């Protein structure tokens, strides 16, 4: 900003100098030329009056000839100086206005404002680099949970879009290249409350550079990156990037997992969705048979790898196999949009189709052609642009892969409910379908056709002060206590404890009689109002006392002392009566 200030001053130098000189000449002339007063006596115009006259002459306000009517000599001088002073005045003002509209100055002012806003942030925040489809979905997801984010994007249009979007909370945003450490620092990378940096730009190298800058400038910060290629992914992992998401690989792994265990997939889907959406039906991808993969690019390769690992027979269709490489099965040459190529790839005998080219029109055409040839196909579609959502919804694909949504989904889950990621990992390790389907039926009974709301509770001074207080009084708190309704303790809240972390131990679906202590972390799912009621129990000692033993005693500090004193009196009375007996 200082630079800009000096720049403005420097650029204002010539206009100001001309203004001063021209004013001085006009004033001097007026004051030197003999004037007349009202009666016609010769007099001189004072410098003050000359200044007064020139100021309203040059700004073309023109009040008339003051203080007296001018002589002809004065009028000649004024006629000359009108042109020069007016021109110079317009020149100076015009110059100043141009300077204010200067894009460099505007950007500097915007950056300065952004810096101050970021510096004043009082809540933990995440720095999101790249406000494309993924970034905007992530910022919205974070805002749903009242988590602050700060956005950098290189495209001014996207930043305008963010400012136009009617956001519930204020999101500081800056139009800058996130590759420059200066911009990252302005966005609060070194801010003590910066929890994490999320690099979501569509340029791999930019993401890499952001990750490096974040790790060097603020090593404690969590770094989450999107990477579209394996080399970049390995590179990022090599210097300790915390989480790297490759949308294609993530989706392929997800499909492979859903082939093995559809129930668990459904469970994780429900839990990681946004609470309140309608529940979706489970999908059962075919377990045996031939899959046809159209497009052997990044997505096609990921699907090929994961489906191959499941032991499926595969045929691959690719228009430019010399560029993408050829799998061991060989490749059918073509785009897959024509019936001939699809038939060459034995579409009539296949059970599944992956439409995975990077052109949405091609993918839609492939699906429509393939479904006329074989209506029983299980179709996986790659959706490259979110605008085409409606078309993909209608084309009849069972599973739609949109890279941005997948990444946003995963990162949101990782940032808001990290325990859910732990749970899904545990579930994946167990591979226990019965366990999952049992849990699914419990959730269905609980939430009435809507996706459950998932939340985390950490037993500490900020989230659960009442529990701390109870622990100080050596009152035992169990999980069941937390799940009781503070309005009516006989009733249980509509929530299911999913995971309990005590120290190193992870307990999925903990029993209700488990004691809860300081530092425990819990993951719940259920209806949203259950969370509000539970917060009440966690924060309010009266509510906690009521749900533990049904009593609602006097709990204010004065009342507590009074109760102690009364109790002591009663004890004394009892002992004296006993002694008397």
């Amino acid at each position, binding site marked *: 900003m200082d630079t800009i200030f000096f720049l403005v001053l420097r650029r204002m130098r010539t206009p*100001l*100098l001309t203004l001063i000189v021209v004013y001085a000449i006009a004033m001097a002339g007026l004051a030197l030329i003999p004037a007349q007063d009202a009666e016609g006596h010769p007099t001189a115009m004072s410098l003050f009056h000359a200044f007064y006259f020139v100021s309203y002459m040059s700004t073309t306000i023109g009040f008339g000839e003051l203080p007296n009517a001018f002589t002809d000599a004065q009028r000649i001088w004024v006629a000359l100086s009108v042109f020069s002073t007016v021109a110079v005045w317009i020149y100076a003002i015009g110059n100043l206005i141009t300077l204010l509209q200067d894009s460099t100055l505007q950007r500097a002012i915007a950056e300065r404002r952004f810096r101050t806003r970021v510096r004043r942030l009082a809540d933990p925040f995440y720095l999101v680099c790249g406000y494309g489809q993924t970034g905007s979905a992530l910022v919205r997801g974070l805002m749903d949970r009242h988590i602050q984010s700060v956005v950098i994007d290189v495209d001014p249009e996207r930043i305008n879009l963010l400012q136009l979007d009617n956001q519930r909370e204020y999101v500081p945003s800056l139009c800058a290249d996130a590759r420059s450490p200066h911009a990252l620092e302005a966005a609060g990378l070194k801010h003590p409350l910066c929890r994490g940096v999320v690099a979501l730009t569509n340029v791999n190298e930019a993401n890499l550079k952001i990750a490096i800058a974040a790790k060097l400038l603020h090593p404690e910060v969590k770094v989450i990156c999107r990477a579209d290629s394996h080399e970049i992914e390995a590179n990022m992992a090599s210097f300790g990037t915390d989480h790297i998401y490759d949308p294609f690989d993530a989706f392929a792994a997800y499909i492979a997992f859903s082939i093995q265990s559809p129930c668990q997939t459904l469970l994780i889907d429900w839990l990681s969705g946004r609470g309140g959406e309608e529940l979706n039906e489970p999908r059962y991808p075919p377990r045996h048979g031939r899959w046809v993969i159209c497009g052997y690019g990044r997505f096609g390769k990921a699907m090929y790898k994961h489906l191959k690992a499941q032991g499926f027979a595969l045929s691959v269709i690719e228009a430019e196999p010399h560029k993408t490489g050829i799998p061991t099965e060989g490749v059918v040459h073509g785009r897959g949009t024509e019936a001939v190529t699809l038939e060459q790839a034995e579409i009539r005998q296949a059970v599944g189709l992956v439409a995975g080219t990077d052109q949405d029109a091609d993918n839609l055409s492939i699906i429509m052609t393939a479904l006329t040839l074989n209506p029983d196909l299980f179709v996986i579609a790659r959706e490259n642009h979110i605008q085409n959502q409606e078309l993909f919804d209608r084309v009849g694909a069972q599973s739609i892969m949109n890279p941005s949504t997948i990444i946003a989904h995963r990162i949101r889950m990782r940032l808001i409910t990290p325990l859910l990621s732990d749970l899904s990992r545990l579930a994946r390790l167990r591979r226990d379908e019965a366990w999952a389907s049992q849990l699914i039926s419990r959730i269905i009974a609980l939430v009435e056709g809507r996706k459950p709301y998932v939340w985390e509770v950490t037993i500490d001074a900020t989230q659960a002060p009442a529990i701390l207080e109870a622990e100080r009084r050596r009152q035992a708190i169990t999980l069941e206590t937390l799940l009781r309704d503070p309005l009516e303790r006989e009733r249980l809240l509509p929530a299911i404890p999913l995971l309990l972390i005590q120290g190193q131990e992870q307990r999925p679906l903990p029993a209700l009689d488990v004691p809860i202590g300081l530092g425990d972390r819990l993951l719940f799912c259920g209806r949203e109002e259950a969370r509000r009621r539970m917060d009440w129990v966690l924060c309010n000692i009266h509510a906690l006392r009521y749900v533990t033993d049904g009593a609602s005693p006097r709990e204010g500090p004065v009342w507590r002392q009074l109760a102690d004193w009364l109790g002591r009196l009663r004890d004394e009375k009892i002992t004296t009566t006993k002694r008397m007996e």
Partner: protein
Amino acid sequence: MNPEKVVFGFFIVLALTLNFGFFVGEIDNPNHHHAWELFFVVIVNMIATVLKFGDRTQMGAVLLATSLVAMLQLLAASLIWTIAVHTTETGMTPSVMASIVSLSGGAMIANVVSVVLLVIETVLLRR
């Protein structure tokens, strides 16, 4: 020779000399201090101030500061003059003249500092 430096030095020194010219004489005698002289002191000082705009060095900052001080004092002096002559019944009195001249004296000290700084800078440059 840098023509910009010539102009710069010229105006700074001219500001001081004109200022001195206005300042000398009996402090409360209006005949010793002329309005036109004050007018030119103000104009030249203004030009000197604007010339100092936009210099990012430490020396530039101090030079600008001294000029701003001089401007402040001179504008105050001309304001007092205008008010005394045009708005009061008594017009110019020796006591008003004394305060105008003392204000311009203050401005002169600021201008002296300016010139001294300019000389120091030049000497440092030569070395």
